[in-house]
């Protein structure tokens, strides 16, 4: 097989991955639709709320669905005086399928399977692309975007084996599909060799870790958005599909956990980039726009980690800082790559 053929097959694999991912997205959407409280439930909830106009009501939240979801609150919540709790291993995972139609459950399972299939196809595409160019497929904006999407899918798929993530699926798969589409339509670059400044083993180290960090930051931003949404749903007591999502407290903790993984990776990206910059550009720090934005992102996420433990700062406000960090990541890969003049001009466009 010639290198051109390999590149063509890489593209076929990419198209297939996107096709399967579209089906996965639809299945996830169908699953979420199945989670929507049925009209009868809504009526019931309203009737309950009316009948239940007792002082106890504030404890129940509003509606049966909320009460169910509230069961998943981890038992470590400081409550005094706390009733004696059975010591259980890890968070108590209630059966989220309770009251969900068999059809929706089936769709959720299909969605996860399709995500795995798409992840496999995308892996194949990245491998073929790498073979066709005889190097790590990280040399331009197109390759970077595809690899970042792959990293996000792998992170999600692997994580989904450890806990039920069907509720998160749509919020990961849809943006990934969007980025793949933009990469293919607007950023596509033909398979080619690297320019001299990229010909270094640091490309693999620096860019791979940057890709991983971005992927985890992305999932963290998604859970962060869902946390803020869930928080407002819980406050208002509205009946929503989010009633069947993990409670706000859990979502906030997941968001923090993801950022705890991504932030050291991003720190490493920064350090590895500086070491490489010294090799290629003679100075480890050049205030190049891409460097500046990598630094800005680092500072914003550092602010998030600080804000979370600062007294007087709510978790909601801290999460907004994390989301601002993710906006900076998006700016770094689009605006800075395409419009600012700097030494990181590797988009290949």
């Amino acid at each position, binding site marked *: 097989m010639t290198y051109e053929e390999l590149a063509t097959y890489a593209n076929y694999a990419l198209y297939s991955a996107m096709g399967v991912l579209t089906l996965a997205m639809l299945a996830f959407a169908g699953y979420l639709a199945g989670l929507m409280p049925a009209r009868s439930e809504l009526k019931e909830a309203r009737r309950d709320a009316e009948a239940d106009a007792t002082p106890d009501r504030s404890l129940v939240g509003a509606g049966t669905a909320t009460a169910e979801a509230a069961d998943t609150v*981890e*038992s*470590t919540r*400081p*409550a*005094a*005086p*706390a009733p*004696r709790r059975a*010591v*259980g*291993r*890890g*968070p108590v995972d209630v059966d989220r399928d309770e009251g969900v139609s068999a059809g929706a459950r089936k769709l959720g399972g299909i969605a996860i399977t399709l995500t795995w299939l798409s992840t496999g196809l995308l892996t194949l595409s990245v491998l073929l692309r790498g073979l066709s160019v005889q190097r790590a497929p990280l040399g331009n904006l197109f390759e970077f975007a595809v690899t970042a999407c792959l990293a996000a899918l792998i992170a999600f798929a692997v994580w989904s084996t450890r806990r039920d993530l069907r509720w998160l699926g749509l919020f990961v798969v849809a943006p990934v599909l969007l980025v793949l589409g933009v990469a293919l339509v607007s950023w596509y*670059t*033909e*398979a*080619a*060799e690297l*320019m*001299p*400044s990229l*010909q*270094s083993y*640091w490309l693999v180290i620096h860019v791979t870790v940057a890709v991983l960090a971005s992927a985890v930051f992305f999932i963290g931003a998604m859970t962060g958005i869902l946390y803020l949404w869930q928080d407002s749903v819980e406050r208002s007591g509205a009946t929503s599909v989010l009633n069947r999502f993990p409670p706000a407290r859990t979502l906030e*903790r997941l968001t*923090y956990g993801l950022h*705890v993984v991504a*932030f*050291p990776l991003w720190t*490493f990206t920064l*350090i590895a980039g*500086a*070491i490489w910059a010294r090799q*290629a*550009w*003679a*100075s*480890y720090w*050049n*205030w190049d*726009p891409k460097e*500046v*934005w990598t630094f*800005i992102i680092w*500072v*914003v996420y*550092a*602010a998030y980690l*600080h804000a979370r*433990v*600062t*007294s*007087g*700062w709510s978790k909601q406000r801290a999460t907004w800082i994390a989301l601002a960090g993710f906006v*900076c990541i998006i700016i770094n890969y689009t605006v800075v790559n395409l419009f*600012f*003049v700097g030494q990181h001009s590797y988009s*290949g*466009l």
Partner: protein
Amino acid sequence: MPRITDDGTDPVTAGTAGRSTDPVTQPTLDARGWLRFLWRQLTSMRTALFLLLMLAVAAVPGSVFPQRNIDATRTADWIADHPTAGPILDRLGFFDVYSSPWFASIYLLLFISLVGCVLPRTRVHWDAMRQPPPRTPARLERLATHSVLEVEAGAGEDTLDRLERALRRRRYRVHRHQPGTLSAEGGYLKETGNLVFHLALIGIIVGVAAGHLWGWKGDAIVPVGQTFAKTRFDTFAPGPWVGDDDVPPFTLRVDDFTAEFEDEVTTEGQFGMPRDFTAYVTATENGVARETIIKVNAPLELDGASVFLLGNGYAPVITVRDAAGEVLYTGPTTFLPQDNNYQSVGAVKVAAADPGLGFVGWFLPTAVITEDGGPQSIFPDALQPALALTVYEGELFPDGRPQSVFRLDTDEMTQLTNEEGTDAFRLWLEPGDTVELPGDRGSITFESVERFAGISVRHDPGRWLTLASALLALGGLILTLVVPRRRVFARVRADSVEGRTVVTMAAMAKADDTGLESLLEDLREDLDPDPDRSRKT
């Protein structure tokens, strides 16, 4: 302004009584009090958070506007293109953001805040590590995460012994303040890592500062075949504390330079992109010569300096003769590339001619004449090189002003015209061509095409400190994010009714900790006398 009530009554009640005239009364602060107040404010977490966000925002303009220390020409062009905004932004430091007073004040305040926060914490942590864990609380059942264990009557202390062993295996520090109680604390590394991270950030700043003070860099454009030494830098930027002896004596001859460009993939954005640059050099230091290569990403390490290949371009060999055929000027003349196709601008300044003769224009490695008549390079390699020049006559160096070697200062020069005087006299030279200049001024010959290497020699003694600090910071960061800080307590209580002994264990953490429950469960398993269920001991 805080002020005390005149009548000396209790300020709080006085303030309440006379609310209409004296809404807020605060205790007075003397100078020391104010200093302490400001210091508390500066070193508070909220200020640090605010400064962090400010730092992020303040760094943005440096990526939007061209920066003088990166690209002085582009900066000057930008200011010239924006006659209104340019000078104002310039005055505000928007073209030297990272050395501007406002940027410096943010990061200096941040570091003062950091030091003021970290040093007291280091002392507290130091003390905490040398003190036993706190006393066991009386009612452990009130702690959210607890576990009650019934053991045989009188086996309480024995259970605590086993719990102590289990906790020590998990590297907890254990202390039994009173019989029947146990206190343990683990995860001191969380705070250690946190402090190491923040102190290492100071190390990074010190390393950067050392690099500025004792570091130096020199750049030179070296045509193939020429040798350069430290006395021949085009630009030399030493740190303030760099002496002349700190730059080691060395010479570097560029023997050859090869460049490869993409010619197989023909899409826009890839075609003509550089693929390989290699400079073949002979480096001489301490009297020893060695032949080696320098590539992008593969600098040459000398004793006390590193040599980097940062640029390249063309240096056409040009000879200018007078009317008698005598050589006035000859040699490789560097032309500065302006785009990816190496369309390069340059000038030949023949000071030996009288009056001075100047040639200025373009070198085109793969030259074509476009339909609208303009010369253009369509590929970066020297496939069909040509020089397109115009000629000026007059004073080359008016008033001895400094000027770029790539441009002519034509203020006191006149352009030569064609015979009819309708247009400028234009030269189009390909290698080997000789053209007679009008008016018996002699001739110009384009002998051959050479390449030049853009060489940068650098020394940064602070970089190892910066790197070590950065790696230390990363290590500290991982520790502080991963290690949980936990306390475990246990208390024995004899249950008088059933005649059994009850051991209550409880665990608590400083922050959210989802692992507390499983810690207690693991400890319970370790304590379980049933051999089938116990995992260890």
